[in-house]
């Protein structure tokens, strides 16, 4: 049916952080409508992988491409990053926080991905924090802040979602809701890469389990020596 599918392709990714090799020659490809769940022990490199995909950690080697996406934009400009930090300004009201991100981040749609732009107040209502809309974000509890941060992803459509431990600090109800939202995104043709320590019940899941490699291999500065 579709002419060219959206496809996130990572080839031979190698990442160094703080002078140490985190991982080497990691390749995967993820096609439209499916989620890649990254698992592994603490400190193995899940967050690093996500931040690399988001263009925030420089690649030591390898390439990241988004096939079928907008050609004049970098992959990370077609992706949302939902990490440990909330990017919420306590001094602004909840609605002001959200409105800013809606206006500031460039939307990115392409023929395959049919994400829609929702209005900020609607999203807040959906996520159950509509009543806090006019309060300063400083008043939110941990879970409420997370939800505010999550609502960013819904007000600006972008095909790729990079989510680092998305369920942390959420209660059972919100967790279910989050999974619903993620499934909707997949259904409308999006892609998700997520790191997690818990089980996530998503529609189309591929798993990437990171494991410690042979320690002899981890010497990033070898090329130098």
């Amino acid at each position, binding site marked *: 049916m579709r002419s060219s599918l959206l496809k996130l392709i990572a080839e031979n990714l190698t990442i160094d952080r703080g002078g140490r090799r985190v991982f080497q020659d990691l390749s995967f490809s993820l096609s439209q409508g499916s989620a890649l769940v990254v698992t592994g022990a603490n400190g193995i490199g899940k967050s690093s992988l996500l931040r690399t995909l988001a263009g925030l950690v420089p690649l030591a080697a390898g390439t990241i491409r988004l096939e079928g996406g907008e050609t004049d934009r970098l992959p990370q400009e077609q992706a949302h990053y939902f990490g440990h930090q909330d990017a919420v300004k306590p001094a602004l009201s909840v609605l002001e926080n959200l409105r*800013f991100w809606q206006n500031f981040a460039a939307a990115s749609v392409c023929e395959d991905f049919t994400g829609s732009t929702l209005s900020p107040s609607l999203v807040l209502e959906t996520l159950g924090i509509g009543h806090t809309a006019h309060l300063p974000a400083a008043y939110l509890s941990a879970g409420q802040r997370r939800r505010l941060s999550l609502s960013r992803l819904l007000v600006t459509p972008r095909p790729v979602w990079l989510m680092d431990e998305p369920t942390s600090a959420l209660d059972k109800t919100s967790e279910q809701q989050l999974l619903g939202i993620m499934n909707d995104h997949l259904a409308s043709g999006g892609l998700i890469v997520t790191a997690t320590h818990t089980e996530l019940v998503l529609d189309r899941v591929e798993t990437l389990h990171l494991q410690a490699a042979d320690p002899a291999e981890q010497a990033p500065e070898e090329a130098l020596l």
Partner: protein
Amino acid sequence: MTGWAMALFQRDLRLSVRIGGSALVGVLFFLAVVTVIPFGVGPDLNLLARIGPAILWIGALLATLLGLDRLFQADREDGTLDLMMMAGRPLELVILIKCLAHWIATGLPLVVAAPLLAIFLNLDPVSMGAVTLTLLVGTPALTLIGAIGASLTVSLRRGGLLLAVLVIPLAIPVLIFGVSSADAAIHDPVPFLTPFLILCALTLIAAVVGPIASAAALRFSAD
């Protein structure tokens, strides 16, 4: 301004107004600095008039430096900066707009208050105008140069050192030409236009170099 730029500008302005960097605080700060000087140098009005322009300029530099280190750091600490780099907007422009908002919140009120404070320093009307004019032209340069330092501080966790080493020496020429063109306007023999044009040039250079350099530093700092 396009929509995103306006949104960013408004947000930054709102933040600085709400978090106590508001215009009133800037002016109050300036007033406090000006009040303090006579306690040091003594109440001799002639002397005060002579060093008046310098005092106003030092106040402006200090006011700029005081808020500047948080220009990007606050955004980095809560993850905003990461998202800004993914937003698909030219980072140089983003920085320019942030600087503009910062200047309007802290620099502009100083310029507006300068004539009033000049009364306390016994400056005559001509000097008043001259100092105000040089401040208007020069303070943006301080902000823009400071932005370079601010982004370097963000990138290198131990980079406060670089902020100091780089920014203040860069700001000193601005300070010197600002003060000397104000002085030139007061003491006729020296031409006013020469140092003033140099000051303008410095501001223009800063408007180009500042955003480019700090965008580079921020990109390099992502981690």
